[in-house]
């Protein structure tokens, strides 16, 4: 099939082409400029971070061979040929992993409770007073922005070495993160039930309990589970600063070059994180399923 392609008169075409070229040229200029700025920033950052490609390339082989070394037992055999020898400290590590999970569980729960207490005060539509909202929001922001491990460092000095410091550090960080997410859910909640409850003469507390809470509780549980999952990862390194969990064993193994131990502990951590991921994913699916059903 042939179709006549209509071609505009050349004058009109030239004008259109010129406009098109101008538009494209401006866009290209903008792109080139931003790319140039970005590269300049990268170069400055490269100097600032002491990037040295020579060390990188001379030592890159080390990175590969590091994985080779951590997968080799002391007698030179590959680790998977002798599982008993590879996981010689299985019982001990399992106990530390249990401690890690317990740390993140307790930390998440404490954080969730505090976030629950704070989030209605921080939400735009539910807060009883603007100044209170401002104060609570700034507090949550502070708890969220300071990394958990910095809190852990300080708490180790205040509360002494051990899992307690890790739990409290995770709890504070979770309060900040969950408080923000919870209050965002509340801000998205439907306000008509609140009006309904208020019209019966109920106070602020009853409004929250009977009008807002039923709408948001599933979302809360979902976010708390997600936070638990993140906290398990976080708790696995709390031991680096002496705040309990499997991190203690790992940093000792890395620092003292117990190569096969490093890989064994890493494998256990990754597997645990997988299981927790899958478990919480399943639980969240059930929670959201229930919500969808009603």
């Amino acid at each position: 099939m042939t179709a006549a392609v209509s071609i505009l008169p050349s004058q009109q075409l030239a004008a259109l082409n010129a406009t098109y070229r101008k538009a494209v040229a401006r866009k290209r200029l903008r792109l080139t400029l931003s790319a140039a700025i970005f590269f300049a920033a990268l170069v400055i950052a490269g100097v600032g971070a002491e990037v040295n490609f020579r060390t990188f390339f001379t030592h890159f082989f080390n990175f590969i061979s590091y994985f080779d070394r951590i997968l080799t037992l002391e007698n030179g055999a590959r680790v998977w040929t002798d599982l008993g020898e590879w996981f010689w400290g299985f019982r001990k590590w399992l106990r530390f992993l249990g401690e890690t999970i317990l740390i993140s569980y307790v930390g998440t729960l404490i954080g969730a409770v505090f976030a629950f207490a704070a989030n209605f005060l921080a939400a735009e539509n539910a807060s009883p007073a603007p100044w209170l909202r401002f104060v609570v929001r700034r507090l949550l922001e502070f708890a969220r922005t300071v990394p958990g491990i910095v809190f852990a460092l300080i708490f180790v000095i205040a509360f002494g070495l051990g899992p307690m410091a890790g739990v409290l550090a995770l709890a504070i960080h979770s309060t900040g993160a969950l408080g923000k997410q919870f209050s965002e859910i509340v801000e998205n909640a439907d306000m008509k039930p609140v009006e309904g409850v208020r019209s019966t003469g109920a106070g602020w507390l009853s409004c929250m309990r009977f009008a807002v809470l039923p709408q948001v509780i599933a979302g809360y549980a979902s976010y708390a589970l997600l936070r638990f999952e993140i906290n398990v990862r976080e708790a696995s390194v709390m031991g680096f600063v002496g705040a309990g969990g499997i991190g203690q064993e790992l940093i000792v193994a890395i620092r003292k070059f117990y190569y096969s131990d490093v890989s064994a502990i890493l494998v256990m951590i990754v597997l645990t994180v997988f299981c927790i991921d899958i478990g919480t994913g399943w639980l969240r699916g059930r929670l959201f399923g229930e919500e969808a059903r009603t």
Partner: protein
Amino acid sequence: MSRVPAPDRRELRARHPQIFDRPVSARLATPAVTLLAFGIFSFGLVDLDFSPTRLLSGVHQLGWITLMMMPPDPGSSLPLYLKALGETLSIALLGTTLAAIAALPVSLLAARNIVRSNLVRFPVRRFLDSIRGVDTLIWALVWINVVGLGPFAGVLAIAVSDFGAFGKLFSEAIEGADRKQVEGVRASGGNALHEIRFGLMPQVLPVIAGQVLYFIESNTRSATIIGIVGAGGIGLQLAEQIRVLEWQKVSFLILMILIAVAAIDWISSKLRFAIIGRRAVT
């Protein structure tokens, strides 16, 4: 005022059996779960050596520490701290960029609409998952063993751990892309690479750019902590000052981190807005 007629309970019960006569299992579920959660919680408290006396004395100590933090004061090491902060920002920027560049081709392999075969996609996905399962701090320790102490190890640590996250996020963005434009490119005679370059990338790049910016922001936070294990940046100074109990310097450093993170937050939200436009908002 007329009185509201008293509700006929029996009739109400009959009309709403799902509210009044729930099965025992449904009625017991909430208390059972609460009890279980609380049981694990109290077991945890005991197992992790919580005791009221320890808590009290710790809070007492913490009060002292907070008092001693006031007012924040860098002493004579302000230039050093500023340099460390610059190092931290550099680590975040470089690490994220490296990770994004490396993750883009791999994410194509993990996307369902690019690679149809499960045989390729599944191992790639598990590989990315296991990289993500290991914390940035652990990667930092590994890289310190390889390239030595210093910020370069931090850059590589951030790059590797973000590589896992980006691979997953990018592949999800690619899977969410519209199929029609790819088909259009194929209809006009483009090959597979053309399809990706002209059909997919224009849709996916703004999403990816937004995610990269978000990660630069969150990596500023991660970059502050990898210094604690010796991978450069402001975390190194922070950990040192905490260890020698120089609380005024500690509070100053924390303040610096807060301000830097807030500034990066602000800049990246502006940039994200410029790149993605109003689509992100509506």
